[in-house]
């Protein structure tokens, strides 16, 4: 149904070296999970949403996309998910050193800005939706659902309806739904933007824990510098008009991170660095000339 340009569609061995098999490339970096190469996205009305986007997401990374509104960060995320066409360029998925494998191999999950639950279905039914859609059933499936619910802290809420849950808990259900498929890549589009700060901090900590524990790879869209620095191993800064990637900052701080990190000088330093990058990016996005 969606006509995303994910190429190529058949398995092509690209790197069969021992290094690739061992989840690292020749430079010793973790193997890539996804590569965005020269992606341009131009809407029918001529708006350039993305210009020359190059980005490699590697196994186990927590990458935040940060930028002013209109910089195309959500567009880029949707393209990664195969939810939008690219005008030119490619999005490549990798698995075990192979170019993936078409649609079937793309095990990814998306967490939307809103919880996006089915209001008519109970929590458990919502969480199991991806498995239902893949026609999975049986004891193993039920165990996966139990695990996911327990990990996000919704154990015992199986039979609640979404409207009976708080915003934070709805988001937890949404994360549990993303988890059940055990995705290679978890894409999150400003997932906690609508929540109050306390709930948001708590969920940030919980997502970090889950990320570390399960060895996930996450791409996380946010407009909060603090959230980006706190969570990420890498912050990708984007600018608007046209939407493009302008900076790529590694946050070289150990995990697990906790509230001590939030008040550390390192945290403040990175926040300053990222804020400055964001300011430069915002300045770039300003209209340079006013047409009469």
């Amino acid at each position, binding site marked *: 149904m969606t006509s995303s340009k994910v190429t190529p569609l058949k398995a092509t061995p690209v790197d069969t070296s021992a290094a690739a098999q061992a989840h690292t490339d020749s430079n010793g970096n973790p193997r890539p999970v996804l590569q965005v190469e020269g992606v341009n996205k131009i809407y029918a009305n001529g708006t350039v949403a993305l210009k020359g986007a190059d980005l490699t997401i590697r196994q186990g990374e927590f990458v935040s996309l940060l930028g002013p509104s209109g910089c195309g960060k959500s567009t880029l995320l949707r393209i990664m998910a195969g939810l939008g066409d690219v005008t030119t360029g490619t999005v490549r998925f990798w698995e075990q050193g192979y170019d993936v494998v078409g649609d079937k191999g793309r095990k990814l999950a*998306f967490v939307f800005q809103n919880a996006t639950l089915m*209001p008519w279905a109970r929590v458990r039914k919502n969480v199991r*939706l991806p498995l239902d*859609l893949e026609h999975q059933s049986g004891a193993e499936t039920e165990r996966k659902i139990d695990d996911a619910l327990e990990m996000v802290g919704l154990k015992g809420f199986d039979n609640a309806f979404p409207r009976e849950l708080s915003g934070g808990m709805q988001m937890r259900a949404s994360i549990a739904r993303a988890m059940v498929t055990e995705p290679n890549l978890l894409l999150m589009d400003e997932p906690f933007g609508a929540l109050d700060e306390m709930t948001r901090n708590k969920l940030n900590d919980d997502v970090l824990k889950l990320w570390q524990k399960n060895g996930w790879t996450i791409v996380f869209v946010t407009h909060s510098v603090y959230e980006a620095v706190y969570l990420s191993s890498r912050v990708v800064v984007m600018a608007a008009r046209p939407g493009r990637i302008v900076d790529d900052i590694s946050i070289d701080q150990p995990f697990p991170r906790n509230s001590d990190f939030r008040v550390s000088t390192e945290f403040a330093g990175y926040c300053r660095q990222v804020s400055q990058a964001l300011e430069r990016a915002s300045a770039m996005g300003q209209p340079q000339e006013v047409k009469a």
Partner: protein
Amino acid sequence: MSAPLIQNESFVKVAAPLAVGVLFLLIWEIAVQALEMPKYILPGPIEIFKALIDGWQPLLGALYITLKVTFLAFLIAVVLGVAASLLFVQSKWIEMSLFPYAVLMQVTPVVAIAPLIIIWVDDTTWALTVCAVIIAIFPIISNTTLGLRSVDPNLLSMFRMYRTSRWQELVRLRIPGALPYFFGGLRISSGLALIGAVVAEFVAGTGGAKAGLAYMILQSGYNLQIPRMFAALLLITLTGIALFALMVWLSDRALRNWHESALEVEH
């Protein structure tokens, strides 16, 4: 004692309109008696009630005929209307090509085409049913189609991400999401089915054993049995109210777990 009862909203909701009704009937009866109004012009409520009791057998028979046509028409309208909606959402092309004809059917006065239908359809019951279906079907089609289209775009994206078939999308996403709209259509349509059944009978002018409430009203009018006319009218009104209440109950049962329309407001 009375203060808390007055503050109880659900009590007031029933009591207030009931009080208005009783007051109205009382004034009506007093006025009719005081003015010595002849009952072939305006009978009082007591007279009407008497007519209802005395003529219960033909009235009930006529009610049965009208109910039969109403329910038959309603059922057919629901089945055909939902089928049409499901067809419409399959493609924008189908909807664009066919929807104007659904509108055409809606705006053509059934009174104007009823004589034709009566010529074409031999059996009176079926002729009336066809007329009532034409009146009742439109709200089902338009509401259900709207509902099937009103899908959370993010949920739809998610379904597409998992490469879901159209069938799964329909069954798991579109149909449950369309239920509140469908029930909205049902409420309107149930009343219209009754109106259709009555109006069609006025036009068709049935007679004999297959006569419904509309014919009873006509007949009573000719015979100046005005109290019986009112009694038949009362039965039609009560039927309409009962149908509406049934639809509200149904929709409440189906949606109460999740939809805003069926939530109880807490004070």
